[in-house]
């Protein structure tokens, strides 16, 4: 709330090796800064006070979109605006263009990066307001009390924490079966997008597999889904500068009027983008139409546990699944 950042040492490495060394030497006191759209909020509120801020925005090779033989590569530092405006992305993966274009506001998209958008912390208002909750190292979830204000919170996979993923692009990347490339100590590993995001049951203090010392460098999207039928929709209170109440992303292949393959994910309903496997299983081999839409509404939110104020997400989830199916007609 103070709007005044704490003092920290700022490092601006120009290559991954330098960055890796810095991250190693500062250990838990280090913080990676890219577009800064999430970091500066934390710093200005003084709820996070890292001693060493490693600004990776000057590292060459982490920015840009390029087409490879069987995937499209997006550098983690590529801005959301560049993704939104990329003809290549629009051609192969329109749901990613649309998701990027629905993030925050034009100003934020100009500075915010894809890597930052998928790595950002949850927007739970209690956590963001400095409450000593589980996620912040405490022993209570303030968003899940009998009177908590939790309209934006989770329907699924709550484990002490009921926060949801705030990432619009994450929902699209899970549907697209993207791969996240992570560098650590000069070595690179790959993690499927679906496993990149983690829930509180795995680690309540993180939203992704990224640990101190890891740098997300690249996102690869397989061409398997290029040219497929795709659908993205984000429902929010406002048309700009707002996080999703719910978002849905779908890629599907239709042959002979029937769905032959499909991946569908949903944002805003749990700590990670949620694969809508109930709906996927329902759709495969079926003809899109009213009946399928009705059945999708029935199964989309199976297992949901509503909190005090978010029961509306249950029909909304079904409605969005139905709309995705309708887009295939």
């Amino acid at each position: 709330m103070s709007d005044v950042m704490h003092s920290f040492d700022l490092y601006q490495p120009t290559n991954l090796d330098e960055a890796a060394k810095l991250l190693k030497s500062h250990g838990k006191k280090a913080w990676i800064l890219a577009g800064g759209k999430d970091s500066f909020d934390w710093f200005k509120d003084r709820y996070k006070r890292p001693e060493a801020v490693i600004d990776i925005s000057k590292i060459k090779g982490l920015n840009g979109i390029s087409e490879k033989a069987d995937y499209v590569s997006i550098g983690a530092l590529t801005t959301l605006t560049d993704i939104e405006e990329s003809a290549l992305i629009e051609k192969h993966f329109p749901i990613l263009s649309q998701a990027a274009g629905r993030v925050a506001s034009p100003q934020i998209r100009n500075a915010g990066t894809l890597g930052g958008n998928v790595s950002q912390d949850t927007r739970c208002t209690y956590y963001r307001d400095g409450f000593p909750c589980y996620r912040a190292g405490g022993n209570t979830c303030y968003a899940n009390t009998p009177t908590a204000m939790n309209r934006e919170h989770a329907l699924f996979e709550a484990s002490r924490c009921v926060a949801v993923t705030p990432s619009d692009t994450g929902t699209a990347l899970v549907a697209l079966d993207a791969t996240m490339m992570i560098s650590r100590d000069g070595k690179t590993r790959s993690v499927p997008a679906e496993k990149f995001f983690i829930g509180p049951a795995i680690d309540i203090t993180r939203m992704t597999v990224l640990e101190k010392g890891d740098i997300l460098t690249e996102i690869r999207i397989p061409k398997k889904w290029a040219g497929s039928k795709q659908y993205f929709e984000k429902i929010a209170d406002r048309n700009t500068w707002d996080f999703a109440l719910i978002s849905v992303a779908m890629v599907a292949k239709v042959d002979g009027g029937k769905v032959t393959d499909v991946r569908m994910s949903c944002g805003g309903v749990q700590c990670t983008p949620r694969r809508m496997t109930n709906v996927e299983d329902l759709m495969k081999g079926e003809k899109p139409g009213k009946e399928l839409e009705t059945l999708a509404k029935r199964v989309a939110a199976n297992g949901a546990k509503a909190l005090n104020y978010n029961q509306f997400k249950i029909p909304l989830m079904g409605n969005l699944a139905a709309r995705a199916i309708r887009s295939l007609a």
Partner: protein
Amino acid sequence: MAYKLIGKNFTPPDIESKVTGAAKYAEDFRTDGMVHLKIFASPMPHAKIKSIDISKAKSMPGVVGVLLPTEVKQPKDAGHAILSNYPVYVGQPIVAVAAETEQQAQDAVDKIRVDMEPLAFCIDPLESLKPSGPDANQGGNVANRKGVKLQKIKWSGKDFAIAGDDKLPMGKAATEWKYGDVEGGFKKAKLVLEESFVSSANAHHAMEPRSAAAYWANGKCHVYGSTQSSSFAVPSLAKYIGIKPGQLNLVTEFCGGGFGGKAYSYPLMALPALMSKKLNGRPVMMRVSRGEEFLNGMARAAFQGWVKIGFAENGRILAVDSFVVQDNGATTGFWDYQNFGDAISIVFQPESMRFRGIPVLTNTPPKGAQRGPGENQTANIMEPIIEKAAKKLGMDSLALRLANVPGRGGDSAKIGAKQGPVTSAYLREALETGAKKFNYDARKKKAGKQANGKIRAVGIGEAYHAAGYNGWDGMVRITPDGKLHVHTGVGNLGTYSYAATSRVAAEVLGYDWNNVIIERGGSLKAMPFNIGQFGSNTSFTMTRTNYAAGMDAKNKLLEIGAIMMGGKADDYELKNEKVVAKKGSKSITFAQAAKKAIELGGKYSAKEVDKDLKGLTKMAAKMIAGTGLIGVAKDKLPKKGTVPALSAAFIEIELDPETGNVDILDHLLISDVGQVLHPQGLEAQIRGGAVMGFGLAATERYIYDPAYGRPNAKGFYQAKPPSYLDVPLKTDAGWVENVADKQNPVGAKGVGEPIQGAASSAYLAAVSNALDGHLFNRVPVVADMIVNVAAKMPQSNKPLQINCQ
């Protein structure tokens, strides 16, 4: 009437600096040696302070001063403290620290330790009214700055039990009035509707937070502040600082949004001045963050209410009974709830009416006036009910409105408890004009489910606000170079009405606008004492003051003409910035007259002024006395009755029942503003006000956690005022033509506030129509509420729950 300047478009002089970024706001103040102030604020909604430890903070690097609540005057009862030793809301300033850098100041604030004992707190007025409910203030639970002293009022357990969960309980009121035979009206009625409702609070969210800077020099305090008003803010700010108005130079050249939340001065504005005083006058800058602005930047009062309306078969409203429980916030707040009664009485002209209300303290941020305080909440609640009534009576809802609204000049219109007169009223004409221009009938026929699955609907809104005062001062000066200087203390809220109203003085004197300079924006500009720029009053009030000052200058010019050229004043007239003999060819320029005025002295150059002028005006006149021909006068023109600004809005929406999303397809707003002063400015105001109204109705959130008494939506992205992507790129604006208000010398009336309420209530009426007449009886109506209705699920909030959306 044919005017040279009034009713014509022009470019206000400060537009260029705003567009280019050259405009200097309070936060842009810089000077050598300036230190920075940061605040330690209450983390608790209600607490007793047991001790404050500043020892570590004082010894932090760069710290130059610490100010404690014991060093500032503490208000009585439910007053609003500058620094409080008894915090009554989260975010209330307790200690201030000044340091060489802002970061050092914040680092020191982080070292302050305040030992606090939490007290029971309240964020729901109805809870506080329960016999054993919490009181937001140890001195009581009910207070309001308009006629309600701090006191404790509790209702009986039986009051609550009888009401149940769905209906407003109604115990003892703090304010009550009645006219006509209300019970008789209900007996005669063909249809009686009874509804309980909730209207949410709204933070003001001014783009410019209430940052301020101050220094002292030669016994004078200089403050750079963000306020809607200029001279009106001086006495109250001087009082906060503890000095006389003449010792204060308040610079208020620009205001980055106020909406009533910066109506004039406020406690926080005085803080840099008090710190600077402690530092022997060293300049102090207090930059207020977005979060601090939310917590200290005022908010519209929320309502929990009940209304019962009796309609005749032809739609005429025979009786209204009403009760409003106001969430008054942590201090004496504003009298929104009292305006509920006035607004219903003028817009619907009920034949009989009873109003009861009670302002209940809560441990939420201080509530202040926000655009249409009370009147716009009223519109938002009433207009969907009017739609319901029309359906039940089998009438078109426009016809039902026309059966009740004041119009045809308003000679028979009445307002409020005393059923007093109004100066003019053309709401009927606004509705008729709007309906025609909007093709209301044709659009209504197209309403219903569309091929895309969305539901199209139209809605109508109406709103009112009192819009004009009298008895204030105007001052103009003609300098020896012949230029006209219009001195105005009204303020620069952003509507440019300070400039539009200044043109009246130029009109009276026949000036070319290029030869007019507006003197404004600070005490050193010699501002007369004007009422502030709030309450939609500027157009009416300031045209009168500038007319009075212009006429005073005109009379003096004619007299000087007679002195210099012989004969009587009546032998002369003003033409092309000259005093010209009606017969013959003799003339003198205004420049020559100004020189003569200086030579003559006395009343001509303000060496002597009317004793009826207000004190600050006399001081301002003294500042420029002897520098030209001075026209300075009190507005003594007659005025009888309330000046009503009235607006009607028409909207067409498409509601998506699957997502809760509502698209505004088209919107038209017609205002009854009397003579238009500045068409371009009025159009911009109407469009901007409508956007703000859509936020009020549809997107803005105000949420407090009932267990912790803390806000859940402080930032813009959480509180969600509407953006330009949430409204149509183009909306229509218009006004009723040829309806000059006879009690204003140029026929003008105010405009600003009912625009918002008309737009928001039209939106809500349309949403209700789209959902087959479903009444939410709750504002705002947000996506989840629509999804719940479409899915036939109950709402998540309890019927009268407050501060929850």
